[in-house]
């Protein structure tokens, strides 16, 4: 779950990291009022995506009038598909030096990883590309944490910054990461000011989706995913549905098998209409799944591909068939069934619809693609 800057920065503040003075504004007038209070400021679009600067979503304002004009312009923008509904108005700080700092869940070292670069002011991909040697990568043992000695040894010599304050900030960044079950806690840029302070000018925070349950309070301030109506319905019911451009509807189980089904559709010249898996704990949701997939008006044929490991094909097939008369599919349906519970599933299919699944997934896919043409 991603968080917008205004929702992420307080987490740094709680951990003891300095952030610029300022606040959230939902209108140009509010932005001007904030500027009145804090003086020369930065007006920043609040959307859960990067590259806001390049999209024109960040502007400097030296007085309230400028803040009003810029806020008005920015509040009209749409950045990467997200309409800008609010701006963060913050005091300008005298920047001496910019750094990059982050702590993230690292799959390679299987633990937290501190990233730091004395070359800031660009995104991490660019840093990794242009200054790979300048990027400090410090693995952390999550059981013992991050000591100042470890950071001291990991950092290169850096001019123009209070080194002790920088090290403390990085320790606090790790605290903020730990406290909030972060997948990523990033400060870019982290700056040293001309008056020798260390301040976080931005913050990107992604909460581990698996930790939402135990961070329920925090999750309330997260940015909701941008969902279509059907995607929202899927989420409300409790399964992952993603609407796509094509016309072959997909009902499958397990993330891996579902992606494979989409790949096969595309390989045989068709285009999938959706991603939908009813595996895991969602395999009893056959009826709702059928309704959501067929709720997409682009769907010209439906491919039902079940391969049972934990998810039992008899339970899933039963769920779909139970809903059959209610939903009354108006498009041709193609079945492929194998794995746990397949004999029972085949028998149900024969009894209810008088049909049999295709012998292989590929044959079912080819037929579904052909029917959608």
């Amino acid at each position, binding site marked *: 779950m991603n968080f917008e800057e205004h929702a992420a920065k307080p987490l740094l503040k709680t951990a003891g990291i300095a952030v610029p003075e300022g606040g959230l504004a939902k209108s140009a007038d509010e932005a001007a009022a904030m500027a009145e209070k804090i003086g020369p400021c930065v007006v920043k679009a609040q959307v859960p995506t990067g590259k806001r600067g390049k999209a024109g979503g960040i502007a400097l304002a030296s007085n309230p009038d400028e803040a009003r004009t810029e806020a008005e312009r920015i509040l009209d923008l749409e950045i990467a598909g997200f309409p800008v509904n609010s701006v963060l108005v913050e005091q300008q700080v005298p920047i001496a030096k910019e750094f990059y700092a982050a702590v993230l869940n690292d799959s390679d070292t*299987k633990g937290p990883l501190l990233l730091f670069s004395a070359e800031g002011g660009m995104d991490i991909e660019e840093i990794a590309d242009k200054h790979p040697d300048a990027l400090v990568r410090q693995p952390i043992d999550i059981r013992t944490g991050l000591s100042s000695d470890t950071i001291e040894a990991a950092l290169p010599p850096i001019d123009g910054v209070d080194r002790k304050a920088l090290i403390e900030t990085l320790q606090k960044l790790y605290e903020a990461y730990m406290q909030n079950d972060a997948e990523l806690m990033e400060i870019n840029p982290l700056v040293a000011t001309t008056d020798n302070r260390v301040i976080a000018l931005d913050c990107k925070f992604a909460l581990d989706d698996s930790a939402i349950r135990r961070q329920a309070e925090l999750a309330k301030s997260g940015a909701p995913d941008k969902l279509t109506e059907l995607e929202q319905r899927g989420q409300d019911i409790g399964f*992952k549905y993603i609407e796509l451009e094509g016309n072959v509807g997909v009902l499958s*189980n397990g*993330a891996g*098998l579902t*992606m494979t089904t989409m790949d096969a559709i595309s390989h045989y010249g068709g285009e999938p209409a959706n*991603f939908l898996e009813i595996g895991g704990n969602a395999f009893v949701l056959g009826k709702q799944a059928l309704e959501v997939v067929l709720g997409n008006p682009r769907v010209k044929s439906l491919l039902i591909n079940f391969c049972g490991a*934990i998810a039992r094909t008899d339970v899933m097939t039963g769920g779909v068939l139970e809903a059959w008369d209610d939903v009354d599919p108006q498009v041709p349906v193609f079945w492929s069934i194998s794995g746990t519970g397949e004999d029972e599933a085949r028998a149900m299919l024969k009894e209810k619809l008088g049909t049999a699944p295709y012998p292989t*997934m*590929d044959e079912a896919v080819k037929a579904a693609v052909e029917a959608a043409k």
Partner: protein
Amino acid sequence: MIVHGNESVLVQGITGTQATFWSERMKEYGTQVIGGVNPKKAGTQHLDLPVWGSAKDAAKDQDAAIDCSCIIVPPPGVKSSVLDALDAGIKKLVILTEHVPVHDVMYFLAAAREAGASVIGPNTAGIVTPGECFVGFMPAFNERVFKQGNIGVISRSGSLGTLVCLDMVQAGFGISAFIGIGGDPVIGTTTRDALQCLDKDAKTQAIALIGEIGGGMEEEAAEYANGMTKPIVSFMAGAASPPGKKMGHAGAIVMGDKGSYAGKKKALEAAGVTVLPTPSMLPDALRERL
């Protein structure tokens, strides 16, 4: 990471609905399930097997060390269950639970590394050694899907892994070992670890590596594959998935070029791995390579 028929297996969380169904299947198939753990039902019997309050208590009751633990407890309890199993001296842990907070995973993986234990998962469908036993949620007992043989299969996904084993067996091959490594972003046994294990396994003559978009595990495995003599064929799911969206598996997300299908394909092909566009093409490709 391969489980054998003579190994003792403890099921932590045995009394749950899923765990009950699958523990029965494991027993029937030949897995040496010695019992389970549920602190609230310590001292009772379940499936005619003893239930202990902890893995440590279970270990005290045994003459020999417990070889393997299968963990099927709700997400908030996984960390303490793993630490309990490590405390009990168990060296092979198969964690089936999905949605375990990643900070917990990193914690118990560090503890496992120190204890010299291997962890498979979390969010794995398990491991199968056809003809001997299985641990997890896999239809090992389905003869259309699993038959003894010499092909090792590695998969992040249980459902896709099942499909691949089915395709192999229907094409006349048999399976030496199936290793489900799990779909989470941080997991104990990586694709590379599983590949190394199958490379050293005497029964395995060739390998089907089933990957998925996201992360860097396939690229890392390609480095190891480079020095191998056993032929490897591969299918990777997600070529048709749009970038930037999580496709059910938390690990399956592409950001920029990292974790992309094209990057993984290139790395594997450079290491001599045959990469196929659909899983049904794996058996023919394998036949050509053998």
